[in-house]
């Protein structure tokens, strides 16, 4: 057991307003995640609000800033952070709701219209032969809809009209594997000044993405696709 000091951002509109930081000292073992700590603290303070659901980096709800960096709290091991003081704050570039909770509505208003199917062909174990009835093995798309990439993106921070890395990465996935979706309509959605051409390619999004979606490279993929499409039309 190691004693760690947690500095937690607190905000309740009209109640804890302006926000403040609450400090807690807590004993953690080598297994505990930041989410485990929040769950422990909530037993004594039911007013502490944060989003969580799956506890294994799969649902994408528990994104927050831990020591200033975008992470999923449920897979952020406390001792691996290597600091005896840990600061926990809500994600950036999203409307603040309460404490560590931000609204995901703007995220989904950009992401959902892409209509990326949730299920994709599985690239794992290609040597495995499924039964005739199954046809080919499928899996979930990698994007967890966590919003970490939007929090880290400097363009999203200054330009609310920018489509943003998650929606663009989803669009790229539809282009790669259309599954019956309308590819020309998707390309039109991203081929403009607030779409894939707005990105500065600094790759902050890919750095924080917890599930290797690599939105920065997916945006490059879209650009290359659009350029080669245009070249084809020239000749």
């Amino acid at each position, binding site marked *: 057991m190691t004693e760690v000091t947690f500095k937690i951002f607190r905000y*309740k*509109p*009209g*109640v804890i307003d302006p926000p403040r930081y609450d400090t807690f000292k807590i004993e953690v073992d080598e*297994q505990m*995640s930041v989410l*485990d700590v929040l769950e422990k603290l909530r*037993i004594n303070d*039911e*007013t502490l*609000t*944060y*989003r*969580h*659901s*799956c*506890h*294994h*980096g*799969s*649902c994408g*709800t528990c994104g927050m800033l831990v020591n200033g960096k975008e992470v999923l709290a*449920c*897979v952020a091991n406390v001792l691996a952070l290597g600091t005896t003081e840990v600061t926990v704050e809500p994600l950036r570039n999203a409307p603040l*709701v*309460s404490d560590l*909770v931000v609204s*995901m*509505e703007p*995220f*989904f*208003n950009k*992401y*959902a219209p892409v209509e990326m*199917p*949730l*299920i994709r062909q*599985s690239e*794992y*174990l290609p*040597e*495995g*032969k*499924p*039964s005739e*009835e*199954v046809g080919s*093995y*499928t*899996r*979930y*798309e*990698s994007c967890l*809809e966590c919003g970490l990439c939007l929090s880290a993106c400097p363009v999203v921070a200054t330009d609310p009209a920018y489509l943003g890395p998650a929606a663009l990465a989803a669009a790229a996935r539809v282009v790669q594997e259309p599954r019956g979706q309308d590819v020309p309509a998707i390309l039109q959605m991203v081929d403009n000044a607030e779409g894939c051409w707005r990105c500065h390619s600094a790759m902050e999004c890919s750095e924080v993405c917890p*599930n*290797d979606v690599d939105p920065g490279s997916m945006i490059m993929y879209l650009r290359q696709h659009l350029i080669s499409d245009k070249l084809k039309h020239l000749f």
Partner: protein
Amino acid sequence: MGKPHVVIVGGGATGAALAHDLTLRGVRVTIVERGEVTSGTTGRHHGLLHSGARYAVKDQESAKECIQENMILRKIAPGTFELNNGLFVAITDEDMAYHDAFLAGLETCAIPYQEITTQEALQREPNLNPAVKAAVEVPDGTMDAMRLPLRFLATAQHNGAVIKTYTQVTKLLMKDKTVVGVRVRDHVTEKTYDIGADLVVNAAGAWSDKIAAMAGVHVPMQPSPGVLVAVYGRWNNMVLNRMHRSGDGDIILPQRTLSVIGTSSWVVKDPDQLEMKKEHIELMYKMGAMLVPAVKNAPMRAAWAAARPLIGSESGATTGRELSRTFKCFDHEDRDNVIGFVTITGGKATTARGMAEVTANVVVEKLGLDVACRTREVVLLPHTAYYRRGV
């Protein structure tokens, strides 16, 4: 007269499916959930869309519910499941001794299956333990524990349900022997207020006895936690199960780019106090390696615990394995002479729709409505619609 108003306590799979059912039947619904939706047990479950095969010998009522709901969910929630089927494999001689009873159970419960050769099993799943002695394919699938309930919630919300998160029930409002609403604490505004209701449904899962106690009644809830371990790598594409009586670490479920090994089972009094049993992590690795030897060295993504809302026998359970996975709807008017109050609990995430149908039948009758259930046919909105209230 306006529509009757029902308050549902708990925003897990059960509350979500019930809100959907009741709104379709013309009831005004408010869900109150103390945290984020699915932040109780639901979000943390293993992710198995049960075919029922796991319960085909010991718990046939539950097995039949599972296969029926499995088939309905495929229709009403298309695009939500990894439908790669499941494989039950015998690894040891003890497993083999279960084989005949297992097939007989599948027959009795009308669960479609296909016995395949061990050679074929290894072709389907190259990482499977080569010691495999027998293999049976069943229509298991995998789901995302949060996104299926979100589809129920999104559709209910679209049909007028109000979903209040970070809103904790602190008291049931009683008029003599009748429940007339709930008192809640809003953890965002830090305000306490009352919500009136024609009827209150307790869908608080492992917490349902705590809510029942607020009406002075008791439900035999036996919170039974289990540990799950997610490891990096998708080591199998089908759900792999040991062909034996449900035990520890006998399922490996592929999910996205991970594999999830589960689970163990014990019992607790308070579902908020789930100490993580470290030796259970080792047990998951050890037992998981019986199915897929390679998971032994797979790095861990996370280990966590969640509490099953099992309905206890009054005599008391020790591991939770002996308790049925079926559900129960308690009509507290019949049972305890408390009017306007119903509890729905037990069951599985897979059977939430069916649980909701049974409960909604009881609820609408009490409200004097005569409207049939439509949730077997209505296709659910995408989960993303839940977040887009303004659209």
